[in-house]
């Protein structure tokens, strides 16, 4: 693994994003409140460009009619089919697996009621090295 400088920090201000190429692979870089995240720019569902997705929150519910909107700006929706991915882990929040196989890992964190699906977007470590955004891969 080596370090690749992909942008100057000033190029991707908070709320911004940039599509870069590292070792021939397209990587979507996001700046969320000064924190940088990287995702392989290909939705694991059918290949949609995640860099063009909308950043939203995670909508949870305790019962029908109740809405709990959390982690605003940390959930990326693929522009093609609306599948939701956690920008921190790449974990999807839908469950495309057939019921009977039940092979996918299910993790429920406190206060969280959605099933994390088996689809995971590939995340890339992104760090800030003084004035540069650095991808490790």
């Amino acid at each position: 693994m080596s370090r690749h400088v992909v942008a100057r920090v000033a190029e991707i201000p908070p709320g911004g994003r940039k599509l870069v190429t590292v070792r021939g692979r397209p990587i979507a870089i996001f700046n969320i409140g000064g924190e940088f995240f990287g995702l392989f720019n290909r939705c694991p569902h059918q290949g949609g460009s995640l860099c063009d997705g909308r950043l939203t929150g995670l909508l949870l519910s305790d019962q029908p009619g109740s809405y709990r909107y959390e982690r605003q700006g940390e959930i990326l929706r693929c522009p093609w089919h609306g599948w939701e991915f956690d920008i921190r882990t790449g974990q999807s929040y839908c469950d495309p697996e057939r019921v009977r196989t039940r092979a996918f890992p299910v993790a429920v964190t406190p206060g969280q009621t959605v099933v994390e699906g088996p689809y995971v977007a590939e995340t890339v470590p992104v760090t800030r090295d003084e004035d540069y955004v650095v991808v490790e891969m």
Partner: protein
Amino acid sequence: MPLDLTGAIDCDIHPAVPGLAALLPYLDDHWRDQVVTRGMDDLVSISYPANAPLTCRPDWRPKEGKPASELARVQREALDGFGSSIAIANCLYGVQLLFSEDLAAAMARAVNEWLAREWLDRDPRLRASIVVPIQNTELAVEEIERRAADRRFVQVLVLAMNDRLLGKRQYWPIYAAAERHGLPIGIHPGSSYHNPPTPIGWPTYHTEDYVGQAQAFQTQLTSLVSEGVFTRFPTLKVVLLESGVTWLPAQLWRMTKFWRGLRMEVPWVDRAPADIVRSNVRLTLQPIDAPPDRDTLLRILDHLQSDEVLLFSTDYPHWQFDGDAVLPEGFPESLARRIMLDNPLATYPRLAELPA
């Protein structure tokens, strides 16, 4: 050689109210007087027209009177005829069509009392669904509470097409009562005809009405899942009676596909719709909309992805098959055992309580 059906639990038969005269003893004074004064003689729906082939198999059709309106014939043809250990009577009468909520409640109460006295008391193999005045949720719950102590009532019966979609919260007290008493909700083809039976208006022919019932089932299933009925009532079972069955895999695919992308509309739907349906929804066998071809049937059964969802039924006296061919050609024997006994017993907890 056809499988031996002896001892099966038949989850859908249709004893019929011969006419309002039969209900008079079970109506209170006011409504009995109103029936006589107004000259009412029957509550007729256009769902199963009297002479339509579907309404009664030719060899079960009586020379006079309504099909399945006489206990002795139902015993001979349905119970003895198939060797069923238990049969669940889903009485289709025009109760849901009435615009007066009070009259509907009086009629539902009379139908249920008539079922208890004239049918359940007279053959220990019979069970029944509670007919409810769905026009008014409070009155429907009252009727469930009135009947629930009689353990021979094993289900709450509603029609596929009422005034509103079944997932709507106005109906939830009915589901709460049903869940509390261990009663599945049985949804049967039919309409209050307060809305056109298609979303595009009134059809011309009976064929269109009956074929369209499958679309009503799809819409109701989507409504129940999307509105979160199974999230709020996780142990509630819904039984789709006489639904046709084979539309289900495509509908599950479609529901699940759109849920994946639109989950944030219905965040309380915390599992894939296909998963919810397989845990909470059951379907009776007849009619099964498939060609008489073993390989095709096996593919369809495989698409259901569960051996727990089907329940044995003859749909007596409706004409869905001939002779004793309740099970379609090539139906797997191991699955037949499950749908004849295990699945009904798992779906209707009250069935195991009383000796058949």
